């Protein structure tokens, strides 16, 4: 069994419990051991690209350092994934940042970006393998047209995240095929849902999330899947559409026979 460090982040323990629970039970069934670090902190939610800003990057560095001795750090939430990978990428290329972080955190030696960060979907693709996953599916989503919603945080900026082609991604569609469904390709799959603007401007959030849902519905989708709690919130609450929205981990657990009640 391979052992990875697992970082849930703030929302997976509160409003996005399904995203967390089904990620953990599925990993166990797939032979992946996920170990949560003690006393982890929130990643900060949004990465600041400012080259001279250090303090707001420290919690991500603490998480990266907690995973130093495991096979890698696994994140599920798109925002955690984005913040932690961008921090890791920038710090690995910036010696002055390494020194400042070392002083802030009073480290014996500087953290230089050695931890490998995987999004859970990358773990499925690169560690488990989609073919292997397919062979473990007991309840395939046969005949279901499923639209993958990437949004912004999973893919961009692609230089730092290096997860998939940012304009024509396939990792979620390959996941959908592995669990027996039919992926639906639609124009808005990698455009923003409105994100945190929902706190300040519901109108803008509803325009953005509505455009995403319309695009998926027009392409014939039966449901839409996401890895991001804030995307799920915007698509469900602000879009005005009734197309069902699920976390990808819910479908994964269901396909593996680990989730009893079907949400179909």
């Amino acid at each position, binding site marked *: 069994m391979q052992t990875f460090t697992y970082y849930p982040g703030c929302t997976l323990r509160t409003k996005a419990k399904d995203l967390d629970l089904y990620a953990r039970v599925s990993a166990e069934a797939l032979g992946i051991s996920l170990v949560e670090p003690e006393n982890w902190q929130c990643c900060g939610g949004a990465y600041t690209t400012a080259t001279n800003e250090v303090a707001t990057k420290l919690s991500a560095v603490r998480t990266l350092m907690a995973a130093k001795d495991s096979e890698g750090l696994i994140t599920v939430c798109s925002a955690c994934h984005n913040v932690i990978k961008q921090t890791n990428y920038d710090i690995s290329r910036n010696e002055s940042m390494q020194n400042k972080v070392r002083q802030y955190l009073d480290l014996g030696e500087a953290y230089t970006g050695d931890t490998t960060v995987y999004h859970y979907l990358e773990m499925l693709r690169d560690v488990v393998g989609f073919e292997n996953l397919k062979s473990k599916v007991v309840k395939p989503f046969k005949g279901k047209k499923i639209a993958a919603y990437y949004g912004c945080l999973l893919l961009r900026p692609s230089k730092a995240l290096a997860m998939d082609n940012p*304009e024509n991604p396939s990792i979620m569609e390959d996941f959908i095929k592995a669990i027996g469904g039919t992926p639906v390709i639609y124009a808005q799959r990698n455009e923003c849902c409105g994100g945190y603007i929902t*706190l300040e401007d519901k109108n803008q959030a509803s325009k953005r999330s509505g455009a995403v849902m319309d695009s998926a519905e027009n392409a014939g989708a039966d449901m839409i899947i996401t890895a991001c709690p804030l995307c799920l919130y915007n698509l469900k609450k602000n879009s005005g559409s009734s197309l069902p929205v699920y976390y990808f981990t819910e479908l994964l657990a269901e396909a593996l026979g680990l989730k009893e009640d079907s949400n179909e």
Partner: protein
Amino acid sequence: MNKNLKDWIDITSGVNVRKCMRCGKCTATCPSYNEMEYHPHQFVYMVERGEIEPLINSESLYKCLTCFVCVERCPRNVEPAKVVEAVRLAAVRRQGKNHLSAEQIPPALDDDMPQQAIVTAFRKYTK
């Protein structure tokens, strides 16, 4: 023109605004286009010309969703979102307080609002 401020923005963003060839692709692809007074391409050329005060005082700073689509799609690798972030940081530091106050948050919440939204809104507007 405040040369110190322009230099600070250049260093903080890490962007060479002179690489911009004015194609407007960043603005054309911006999800907040309709909400903005100044658009991503304007941030780039106004910083180049040192016209930073109108940007610092504009609500456009808080319409940017940090979706990085302008960074990804710029054919010259100018990375406009990093310019917007640097100007936002200058504005937040100058006003000496957060863009959002804690008192504004509870009325904006509902039972399903993920913590991620609150943390992100605060973190983005404070430093």
